[in-house]
């Protein structure tokens, strides 16, 4: 359900009282409505579903998620965590 793709807000115009933006998705552009992301501005990445931005991508969270995954360190900590819980059960 709900195919939504991240794109870069390039410019914003008001059309019929609606906040509309040119959004760049990997080199192609389409208009998207920013009414639901009133704080989005040029340079932000928004998640677009059926022509509407439904959220501004949180760059910090994205980076953290990626870095935690990319770091192998979490692996051991994580497994210890589960092992500890299992020991706790016993």
């Amino acid at each position, binding site marked *: *359900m*709900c*195919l*939504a*793709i*991240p794109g*870069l807000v390039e410019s914003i115009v008001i059309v*019929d*009282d*609606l906040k509309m933006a040119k959004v760049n*998705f*990997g080199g192609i552009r*389409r208009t998207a*409505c920013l*009414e*639901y*992301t*009133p704080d989005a501005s040029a340079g932000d*990445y928004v*998640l677009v*579903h*059926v*022509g*509407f931005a*439904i*959220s501004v*991508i*949180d*760059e910090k*969270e*994205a980076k*953290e*998620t*990626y870095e935690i*995954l*990319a770091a*192998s360190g979490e*692996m051991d900590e*994580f*497994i210890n*965590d*589960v092992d500890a*819980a*299992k020991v*706790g*059960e016993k």
Partner: protein
Amino acid sequence: MKYLDEFRDLKLAQNLSSRIKRITSKPWKIMEVCGGQTHTILQYGLEDLLPAQIELLHGPGCPVCVTPMELINKAIAIARTPGTIFCSFGDMLRVPGDKGDLLQAKAQGAEIRTVYSPLDALNIARNNPDKRVVFFAVGFETTAPANAMAVHQAKKLNIRNFFLLCSHVTVPPVMAAILDSSENQVQAFLGPGHVCSVMGWKEYEEISKHYNVPIVISGFEPIDILTGVLHCVKQLESGKAFAENRYARAVSVSGNKSAQNILHEVFEEGDRLWRGLGAIPKSGYKLNENYKEYDAEKEFLVEAVNTQESSLCISGEILKGLKKPWQCSAFGKECTPENPLGATMVSSEGTCATYYKFGKTQVKQEGDLSLV
């Protein structure tokens, strides 16, 4: 593309895969709620990266599949009314009612247009003031605010030839219905990331608590889904059950307030029929009193046609995760994407259609290609 490619990384996938394998000690059944997640799982052959003990059950989160046939029949009847332009998302066009689908109605002369956004349908109404323009407003909570905005704008701009044929459904009631079922097999859920972008994830904390079931809000890329599975297994293996958000780049606790506001301004909660599942109380949205003049069902007085039931089809059991497509005697035989018998085959995102398309026609063995 930024925020897509890095979440399709081979090394990360392998890393997550080995971590999942390492901590899995028992068989677990995890349901991904969204059709979009099902699509990713099949498109990337993601089950090949999971241990054999983990079974992914594919849930009812495809709005196209669960739209009741009665409404498809109405859509076709409306589309055939002279002087009408019927607008729809692409996927809905192929969903069959009693007597063919919208593509067939189009072939016979009905003016039917595929649109990308509900605002495109509104523009068509503006540019064709002498016609009645109907938009087939299907979708979960992610899509409903977009549809709401189209009708909100129509009212503001006094566009009177624009109507919605509504079939909005919501996720929490159907999850509760699955968990309430005496045959339920789901032990944990991957929560619907984009629904939660709009609605936040508080509702899922309540479900998790009430039913003592782990719910991990997950995104739609392979790495997001593997991460979701990892954290489901982590909870299951350690005997915990809580809701957690693993799609933090797009989901906040309380969601998108602006979208929720318009949603509530235009729609009200209502009971909904789910194709393959039946009626579920308060599981959808309909236009409220202030917007009733935009309701296509009131504007076009078309009769609902009775529907037949197939004794062969098991799509209800598939939507609830009780059975896999290959356990259906009709799968790939009487029932194919060209001639679907039920909900899960009608949309390309439906579980049966996805299995058919990606050739998953037999029970999966670890490392096996699942070839016929």
